[in-house]
């Protein structure tokens, strides 16, 4: 037996978008190795309902482990179930999203099995029958091709890099036995606090619009919120460290070395100078647009398209034109 395990993260009974990306990447890897994709969904009772859709992204089988112990995510509980699954099936690789949960869980699973781990992979290949992961290091200043000493190769995938591809596979749903007891967990989630408004996370949004000190004060971020809204729920608003340190925006929105690493399809840097630590968090974005009044600002060196000028004049026009275009 073999196979590629795709951990399909779910929240509130719904499979998250990153799960589609992970299953898609697993499908590609499985085809290269001539094996199957086993998607795994863990959660409370009722989680099976959303699992069926994973066949549409290439899962041959979807294993669903439902348990009262999984009312919330548990690193220890999930590790126990996944490590046992991976051993039983002798999987070649175990893929996770590089989300808050995936990055918490995957290294634990690797350590439990005593195998290597590569995080935030941006490409997966097969060389000589073995899995090879490509991942950024030094904040994207370098890329490393990494091979694995044992099986499974445990890898987390950077969100937004592996575009979901529809591919109809059976996606046959099977029950996975979960014999864990919440009373044994040393760590328990007590509460989930959503940000003020339910919003898209900068780490996962396909479009990110970040603002910097050039916005002058926190109220002006509404200009960015309006542009984000014009993109119809596909965009999130990010921030440079300068404005997070000033208390204008929460740290969860910070992009860069000491914030989030984002790789959206489209990144707008508005009133951001483009310091090396900011670039560290966004340089792997597919397209970068910079708006800055200083033509010498370093951000223009990495931007695909730039507009030089006053953001207070440019943003309202941009929002208006985007609205018209997408109407």
């Amino acid at each position, binding site marked *: 037996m073999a196979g590629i395990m795709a951990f399909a993260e779910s929240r509130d009974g719904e499979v998250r978008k990153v799960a589609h990306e992970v299953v898609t990447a697993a499908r590609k890897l499985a085809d290269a190795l001539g094996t199957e994709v086993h998607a795994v969904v863990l959660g409370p009772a009722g989680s099976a309902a959303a699992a069926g859709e994973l066949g549409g992204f290439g899962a041959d089988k979807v294993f669903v482990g439902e348990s009262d112990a999984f009312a919330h995510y548990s690193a220890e509980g999930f590790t126990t179930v996944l490590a046992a699954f991976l051993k039983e099936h002798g999987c070649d690789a175990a893929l996770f999203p590089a989300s*808050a949960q995936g*990055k918490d869980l995957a*290294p634990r699973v690797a350590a439990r099995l005593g195998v290597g781990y*590569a*995080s935030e992979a941006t490409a997966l290949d097969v060389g000589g029958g073995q899995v090879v992961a490509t991942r950024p290091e030094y904040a994207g200043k370098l890329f490393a091709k990494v091979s694995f*000493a044992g099986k499974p190769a445990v890898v987390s995938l950077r969100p937004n890099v592996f575009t979901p591809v529809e591919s109809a596979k059976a996606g046959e749903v099977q029950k996975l036995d979960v014999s864990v007891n919440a009373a044994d967990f040393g760590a328990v989630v007590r509460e989930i*606090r959503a940000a003020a408004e339910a919003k898209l996370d900068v780490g996962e949004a396909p479009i990110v619009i970040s603002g910097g000190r050039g916005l002058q004060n926190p109220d002006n971020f509404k200009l960015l919120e309006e542009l984000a809204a014009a993109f119809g729920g596909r965009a999130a608003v990010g921030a440079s460290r300068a404005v997070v340190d000033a208390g204008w925006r929460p740290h969860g929105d910070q992009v860069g070395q000491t914030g989030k690493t984002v790789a959206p399809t489209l990144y707008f840097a508005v009133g951001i100078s483009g310091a090396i630590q900011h670039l560290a968090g966004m340089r792997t974005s597919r397209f970068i647009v910079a708006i800055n009044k200083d033509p010498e600002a370093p951000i223009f060196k990495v931007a695909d398209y730039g507009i030089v000028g006053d953001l207070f004049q440019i943003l309202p026009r*941009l929002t208006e034109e985007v609205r018209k275009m997408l109407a």
Partner: protein
Amino acid sequence: MRVKSIVCVKRVPDTEARVRIAADGQSIETAGVKFVLNPYDEFAVEAALKHKEAAGAGDVTVLSVGGGESAETLRTALAMGADAAVLLKSAGPLEGLAVARVIAEEVKGREYDLLLFGMKAIDDDLQAVGPMVAELLGIPAATAVTEFSVEGGKATATREIEGGSEVVELKLPCAITLTKGAYEPRYASLKGIMAAKKKPLEEKPAAGGESGVKVEKLSYPAERSAGRIVGEGPDAVPELLRLLRNEAKVL
């Protein structure tokens, strides 16, 4: 109450450093590169100091796996206020699982309430050593934590998740990895720097660090194709959108 912490710290190239690939294609050129205490580890050291101070008793031990130069990094943490340091000397740089194994082996025999880490080391950007060590030791962990409290045999930690935060309760001893949040690192005072010279720094060989992965090849990212200034002011907006739609095909 007392809070006894072990903080794992790493010596890494400064964020401003230009990183060049060495002749072997698998490691980086270190000559002329400025090295610093990993910025995320500064949050962890600060958190350990704060909790010891709040409890009124305890101690902070800093631990690093690396070459002889890492002693300098440990001295930086001692100057911030840590009480003692341990350097587990390895011949060359080790990958994540190998480091985790070395740390777990050392910590196993020690008494502590908190085992603290940075969320990530800014050289390999792995974000894994903390949870790996926790798993090897069989203790609970919380990652990407911005703030935590310690009381009555447990820690309560707030961690960043997509679109909000999550509050996790952990039995002690536990592992926590820190990101930017409530622990703004203090500067080492001159007095601290002087005192650090006299604090104990134990050196011993790193034991049992078998690797899980191997870097086959390092490469530079594809150069971003020279960008273009579309124009000046609001009148450039239509052209920008035309390019995004027809050339970049992202809209």
